[in-house]
């Protein structure tokens, strides 16, 4: 399949230029260390189990989220921003491929590399040292499926926001807004169980919770109905991918290539 070549090239590029790899590894490692220290400190003083979560559950949730964050990145949108800013998007559009699909596979190559080279090693270390409590195999399988759906939602969101750069000329700041939304409403840093009720009800109607909160809750054994979690994720993924597809057709016609 032609499009797998895009994924392969992305993997090879990562193997050759290691600057990005180091960034990803040191960033993930530092965040894991800080979050571990922070949450241990919070629990040492906290009133009985905030949000009904034990320290072990919270660490499992938060540290697994940090390990996965390298894989669940917003690079898809940033990649489009970069191409629009540099003007290379024009030549890429002229190629006889579906660019949206090509970008997806390129992103998949990147993500597969980061998953295997950063997320899995960091996670394994956490699991071996017992900082993260690994649930029974059946739950792990549900979690893996949920994590893949989370990737799709993140990718689709990032892609759609990246496309807005076609209208504004530069989407870099827009991707930062998206990242802010993810940080606040996905439960990436603080599990949604700890949120005040009003904020939690906002988070529940937004797509962001499907990226971190649902998969990490499954992994930490905090989810009642697994199928309905995954169905919600799949629903958002399909909706956002379709929205991206629609916007893509619109965006091609408004693209203005700057400079060169």
């Amino acid at each position, binding site marked *: 399949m032609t499009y797998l070549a895009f994924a392969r090239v992305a993997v090879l590029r990562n193997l050759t230029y*290691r*600057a990005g790899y*180091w*960034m990803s*590894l*040191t*960033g993930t*490692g*530092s*965040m894991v*260390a*800080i979050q571990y*220290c*922070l949450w*241990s*400190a*919070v629990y*040492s*003083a*906290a*009133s009985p189990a*905030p*949000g009904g979560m034990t320290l072990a559950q919270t660490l499992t949730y938060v540290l697994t989220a940090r390990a996965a964050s390298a894989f669940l990145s917003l690079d898809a949108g940033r990649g489009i921003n970069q191409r629009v800013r540099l003007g290379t998007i024009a030549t890429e559009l002229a190629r006889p491929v579906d660019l949206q699909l090509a970008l997806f596979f390129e992103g998949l190559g990147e993500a597969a590399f980061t998953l295997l080279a950063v997320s899995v090693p960091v996670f394994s270390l956490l699991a071996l040292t017992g900082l993260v409590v690994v649930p029974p195999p059946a739950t792990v399988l549900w979690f893996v499926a949920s994590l893949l759906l989370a990737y799709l939602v993140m990718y689709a969101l990032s892609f759609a926001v990246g496309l807005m750069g076609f209208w*504004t*000329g*530069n989407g*870099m*700041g*827009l*991707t*930062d*807004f998206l*990242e*802010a*939304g993810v*940080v*606040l409403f996905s439960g990436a*840093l*603080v599990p949604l169980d*700890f*949120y*005040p009720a009003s*904020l939690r009800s906002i988070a529940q109607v937004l797509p962001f919770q499907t990226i971190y909160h649902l998969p990490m809750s499954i992994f930490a054994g905090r989810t009642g109905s697994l199928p309905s979690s995954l169905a919600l994720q799949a629903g958002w993924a399909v909706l956002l991918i379709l929205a991206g597809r629609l916007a893509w057709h619109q965006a091609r016609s408004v693209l203005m290539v700057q400079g060169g």
Partner: protein
Amino acid sequence: MQQLEPFPRGPTLLAHYLKVYTIYVRAGWLALMAYPVDFTVRNLGNLAWNLAAVGAIWLIFTFTGSIRGFDRAQVLFIYAMSMLARSIWHLLWVDMMSVGGYVQRGELDRLLVRPLDPLFQVVAGYLDHDDWGELALGLMVLALAGRSLGLGKQPLLVAWTALAVLCGSLVYAAVHLAAASTAFWMVRNSAVTSLAWDIDSFSRYPLDIYPAVIRLALTWVVPFGFAAYYPSQLVLATGTHRYLAALTPVVAVAAFAGAYRFWQSGLSRYQGTGH
């Protein structure tokens, strides 16, 4: 034929550098303002991202009263000091992280043939475009947290905080300069520079949350503890480590001097990567 001005020395040299620096910064600012909408959107995005990170701390304090004895205002005060110190370094001096790239591509040669200090050219030549949101938010959070800590009636402590933030920027500069200078020995130094980039997040929280080995490392090896935590101890009523706190300016200057020496010894063995 036009007579060349003699190259300035002594106090005139300092004035000369100040003048050139003003020209560099003005040029950098004009370049940013060439795309005012882009500048605004990016920095609002940067502000939103940082606001979300501050929001995470705010959320933690909705279900706990204190972390290792630090209450909400105290944690936010340290966090804001660290944001400010980092953003000042980032806005003015971040291009020192590109030294590795300059060495790899042989672009450092271009800076060496000009009659200005090469490090000065690296940092002055680039005014950062996307961290102004962090600066603005840092100021706002510091003002709010400072007010609830009762700083309003204590001008001396306000002055100390301002000095400490500048010292904090110098600590940031020292660590990143030392990390960047490894490029002279290892050429591909992205592992070192990205490590420095990421461990700076440790400066955002009270050091009391870390185990002893990390606290010692952040005090004596990579002195990010002096970017916010130690100097804040003179401001917080519950502060300990007051001697170390008072040492902040000394540590900052010494760290930067050490890093600058390291940079110079690297520069003296630089031979270009060949073209």
